[in-house]
């Protein structure tokens, strides 16, 4: 039998006034594994039964309907299981307390630095969900999770969520995943549509050290871009192109090119459409498109195809969060110096004239990152310090005369 106890909970019980308390045993049925807790878990697992925590030596006759017992006192905790009306001592292991939980990654990542950082993740789809969880694993201490969507069937294939999560708000499901990795993480949940809650968006961006912009449409990215410029925050944008044939990552640093500058410089790209309902809501699939045509427009790429793009966003985030501090990834500060990164998964459409991987040499080919510096536009509608130059549609003025 493998038994786990929570160091944090035992410390709290030992220093508290109560002589005993009733807790909970969560047993992975048929696997001979049990986790014993003084407090109920937000989301239980396995078979749940009672567990008696006591500072005095346990007496078997007192334990009527209790199977598990933890004696806290003297030389550390002792765990007993009741079998045939006798208490049998079993070995136990500890889930470490906060300061020790992620000590194993010390040296590579400065957990102490990341623990103090607050990351806002806007959009918890296949990109945002993975990035949030990876950053939590790296030791980021505080998150703002923003998404109004719920977990649905079409989300599942590329999402971190499970079938058991169907119907849940993504903010709740991802919170659970993060806390499952690091229960000491502080999480703020915002199940709302940022394009309709500008003020709340500003508050969220203002409080964060870094913003992950993982929404699937330009209107929300434009809104985010404006907030990042207004509050001088670093933001990382990522997306997949049609059928995830490739993707790109853009990082905004205050004073440099913003997302609107990027759109001004490289134009609007054809993005992957993963969900008809949300694509109709954002207008990416116009209202007049029939259900059949819309079905043909929804073309979802492989999970493995968006993975590299997520990975780049995570790396950039970790470099950004530990910038200026000595850590095992400091060297990447000298390498990830661009503000735009492009990746091709397959030589299709946009990348059809790229070189085949064997023998490509220095020529552009698949599955390699290409970095570039996008320059700031003097006429940018979002970040320009000078006068804003708008698109006045002069070409349509001429057309008007033709009627």
């Amino acid at each position, binding site marked *: 039998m493998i038994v786990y106890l929570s160091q944090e909970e035992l410390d709290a019980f030992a220093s508290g006034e109560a002589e005993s308390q009733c807790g909970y045993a969560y047993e992975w049925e048929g696997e001979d594994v049990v986790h014993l807790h003084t407090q109920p878990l937000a989301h239980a697992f396995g078979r749940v039964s009672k567990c008696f925590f006591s500072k005095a030596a346990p007496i078997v006759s007192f334990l009527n309907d209790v199977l598990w017992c933890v004696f806290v006192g003297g030389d550390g905790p002792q765990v007993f299981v009741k079998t045939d009306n006798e208490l049998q001592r079993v070995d136990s292991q500890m889930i470490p307390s906060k300061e020790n939980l992620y000590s194993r990654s010390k040296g590579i990542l400065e957990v102490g630095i990341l623990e103090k950082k607050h990351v806002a993740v806007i959009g918890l789809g296949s990109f945002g969900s993975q990035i949030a969880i990876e950053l939590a694993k790296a030791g980021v201490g505080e998150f703002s999770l923003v998404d109004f969507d719920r977990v649905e069937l079409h989300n599942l294939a590329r999402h971190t969520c499970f079938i058991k999560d169907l119907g849940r708000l993504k903010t709740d499901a991802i919170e659970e995943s993060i806390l499952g990795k690091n229960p000491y993480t502080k999480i703020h949940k915002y199940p709302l549509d940022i*394009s*309709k809650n*500008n003020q709340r968006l500003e508050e969220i961006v203002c409080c964060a050290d870094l913003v992950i912009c993982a929404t699937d*449409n*330009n*209107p*929300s990215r*434009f*809104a985010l871009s*404006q907030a990042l410029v207004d509050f001088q925050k670093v933001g990382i944008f990522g997306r997949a192109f049609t059928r995830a044939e490739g993707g790109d990552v853009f990082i905004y640093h205050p004073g440099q090119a913003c997302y*609107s500058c990027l*759109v*001004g410089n490289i134009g*609007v790209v*054809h993005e992957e459409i993963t969900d008809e309902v949300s694509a109709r809501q*954002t*207008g*990416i699939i*116009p*209202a*007049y*498109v029939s259900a059949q045509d819309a079905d043909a427009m929804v073309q979802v790429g492989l999970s493995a195809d968006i993975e590299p793009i997520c990975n780049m966003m995570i790396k950039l985030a970790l470099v950004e969060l530990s910038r200026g501090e000595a850590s095992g990834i400091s060297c990447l500060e000298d390498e990830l110096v661009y503000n735009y990164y492009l990746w091709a998964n397959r030589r299709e459409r946009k990348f059809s004239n790229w070189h085949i991987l064997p023998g490509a040499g220095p020529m552009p080919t698949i599955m390699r990152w290409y970095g570039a510096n996008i320059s700031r536009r003097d*006429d*940018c*509608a*979002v970040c320009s310090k000078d*006068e*804003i*130059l*708008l*698109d*006045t*549609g002069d070409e*349509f*003025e001429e*057309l*008007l005369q033709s*009627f």
Partner: protein
Amino acid sequence: MMKYSRYQAEIKVLEEKLPSNIYRFMDMNTAKPYLVMAARTNRGNIYTLKIELDVFPDNIPKVFVTKMLYDCNLNPLDTPSSSMHTLNSENGCTQICHYGTSSWTNRVSLYKVYIKCRLWLEMYEAHLSTGAPIGYYLKHQS
């Protein structure tokens, strides 16, 4: 929601391009700001346009003709149609599909939106006289 600097830039363009008595910004300090504009077609007919500004410039503003328009067969233009470039009507007003999401950027001015809707009205009137759908005159609004 539009920033003040953007609002100023929009006004500057409109002042340069149009007489000041044909447009008016309304309810600008509320959650539902809008712009009302008069549009006179080449045939001399006058329409009033309501341009909703709650999501502008991050997203495409909804534009309504402030009455229900009818096609050449006297059917109301009240539903999404790719051939007529309309979206769902609201409050009995025809909604113009003036921009495609995939080509929208936040640099597009309200003046450009206005010009594209003026163009739509010209095509609408041409439709009334010829019966050809609006899509015939303009493939897809870009």
